[in-house]
């Protein structure tokens, strides 16, 4: 697979997450970090060294972690609550529902190493469910940054928004894909390439692969639009409808289950507004053993896989 972004330098967005958080914390005393014995894996060592009192590590206790964060928000803080995504979402689900979303507290939930980033550690440590789970909580904004610049924007956006927010913090290294002048707004997709035959809608780790797929399709004379959906909630429904109307076919790609994540959100908008053919790529089941890169290949979450789905949806397979 010798395409542009696959050869480009790749970045670990956790560094950007941590650095941006420190920058914000220097300017705003209300910002605190809350974690579950995950100072290291949440990349919060520097934060702790600079703000020892403002790093609250509750130990291995995710329900308590989210409850404590909600309490800190009550006391006027803006808690960035950080844990491995499967434990943050799965273990503290009802706290996220009741204490954060329904109580409407400005708590920022940072799901570390989402998707299958923890590769060999297996399904208990994968977070392929988080987008489906979190989308089923009313009032929660959901951001899936695709590269370092979006990671930083996401942290800033969430700190300023006043809204309960879930952010995936990628561990899997990704190339930079976001143009300097790209918007970072709730409900606003980033259009990365123009295209008229098909639209590839991707998030997170899948965005660079969608770009590579578009390049490959272009070589076959297929004009593919690429949208980075970034905000899975609120979704950019206008961009989806425009894609359906203007390109007539859609492929979605995400590192997660298809039951209720990006693909499901897109399928809903399409089916309700402008029915066209959609193919959804994602993770179909609990993964076998393997590295994150291996598993993405295993499940066809690659540029080839995306391009293949595009050809299939166009009947050119």
């Amino acid at each position: 697979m010798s395409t542009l972004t696959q050869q480009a330098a790749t970045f670990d967005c956790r560094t950007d997450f941590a650095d941006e958080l420190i920058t914000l914390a220097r300017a705003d005393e209300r910002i605190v970090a809350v974690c579950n014995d995950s100072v290291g894996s949440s990349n919060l060592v520097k934060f702790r060294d600079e703000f020892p009192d403002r790093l609250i590590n509750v130990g291995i206790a995710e329900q308590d972690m989210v409850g404590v964060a909600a309490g800190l928000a009550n006391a006027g803080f803006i808690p960035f609550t950080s844990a491995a995504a499967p434990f943050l979402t799965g273990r503290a689900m009802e706290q996220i529902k009741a204490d954060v979303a329904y109580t409407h507290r400005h708590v920022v939930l940072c799901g570390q190493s989402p998707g299958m980033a923890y590769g060999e550690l297996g399904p208990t440590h994968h977070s392929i469910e988080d987008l489906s789970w979190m989308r089923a909580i009313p009032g929660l904004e959901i951001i899936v940054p695709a590269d370092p610049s979006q990671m930083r924007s996401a942290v800033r956006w969430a700190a300023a928004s006043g809204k309960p927010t879930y952010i995936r913090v990628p561990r899997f290294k990704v190339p930079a894909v976001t143009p300097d002048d790209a918007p970072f707004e709730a409900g606003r997709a980033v259009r990365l390439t123009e295209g008229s035959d098909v639209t590839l809608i991707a998030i997170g780790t899948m965005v660079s692969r969608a770009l590579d797929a578009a390049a490959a399709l272009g070589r076959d004379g297929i004009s593919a639009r690429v949208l980075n959906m970034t905000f899975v909630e609120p979704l950019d429904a206008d961009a989806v409808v425009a894609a359906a109307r203007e390109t007539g076919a859609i492929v979605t790609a995400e590192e997660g289950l298809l039951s209720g994540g990006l693909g499901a959100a897109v399928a809903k908008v399409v089916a309700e507004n402008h029915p066209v053919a959609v193919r959804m790529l994602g993770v179909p089941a609990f993964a076998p053993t393997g590295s994150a890169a291996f598993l993405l290949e295993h499940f066809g979450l690659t540029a080839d896989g995306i391009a293949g789905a595009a050809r299939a949806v166009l009947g050119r397979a």
Partner: protein
Amino acid sequence: MTTVLEPAAPLQVDDHAAHVYQQRSALLRASSPAEAAAELKGIATAVRRDILTTIQSAGMGHVGGDLSVTDLLVTALWGTLRMHPADPGHPQRDRFVLSKGHCAAALYSTLASCGFFPRARLSEFMAPLSPLNGHPARLKVPGVETNSGPLGHGFPVAAGIALGARLRGEAWRTIVVLGDGEMQEGSNWEAAMTAAHYRLSNLTAVVDRNRLQQGARTEDTTALDPLDAKWESFGFEVRVIDGHDHQAIKEAYAPSTTGRPVAVIANTVKGKGVSFMEDRVEWHHKVPTDEQVRLALEELTR
């Protein structure tokens, strides 16, 4: 997905009641526990009466736990904590969290007694589009700090609030009231460890130890005793009291003397004050008939 806000008439402060509260509660807070007890008892009786009529008008509610927790609530809100009914979001307010959120009628009746909203609104309990939902919701009811209802949520949140006060160097205190059955939720023991580890001496956790849960006695469901030893081993300063003795409650609500957070195990009677409800499991959420309410109110004048 966005949250739909309530289309209901919002609750607003009852100016007169709030004014009375400010003065009386200041005196009660300043009084010795022994001096304050009789007056707190009177307020509690009035609140119990409101609980009964509130549940009567809704035709639903959790009367047993409401009546067991009333004295704990009234002593907290009238005799201990600094509340601001006219300015419920006052940043220096003390915080009260009712973790056993199914006893919303008791909380609402007590908040109304303080003037957070007019007592008359209690009749809207659980009515269509009413702000007085079956479980407390903070965007709907002034004085509610966090939404409760699922058991095991209030204590971690209260620990976070107390930790927040500590981080800000603020003097306000936090009291959280838990059901005893609720202590079976592991989330509470997580919060206990956190509170003890951070030595949150500004936090008081109160267990309404009525020895009954929804379906049976706690000790016949999943035993909690020795509950004092549990709290002690989790790093709390433990105070075991009669949860209907206002003097004892006010004493137990005094700040920590050890630098550790305080656990008050308040021995109570579920259904307290209404003889035919007392210590009977079926009154967890049975709804009294009009005749039973009449009899209950009669008992609650004596």
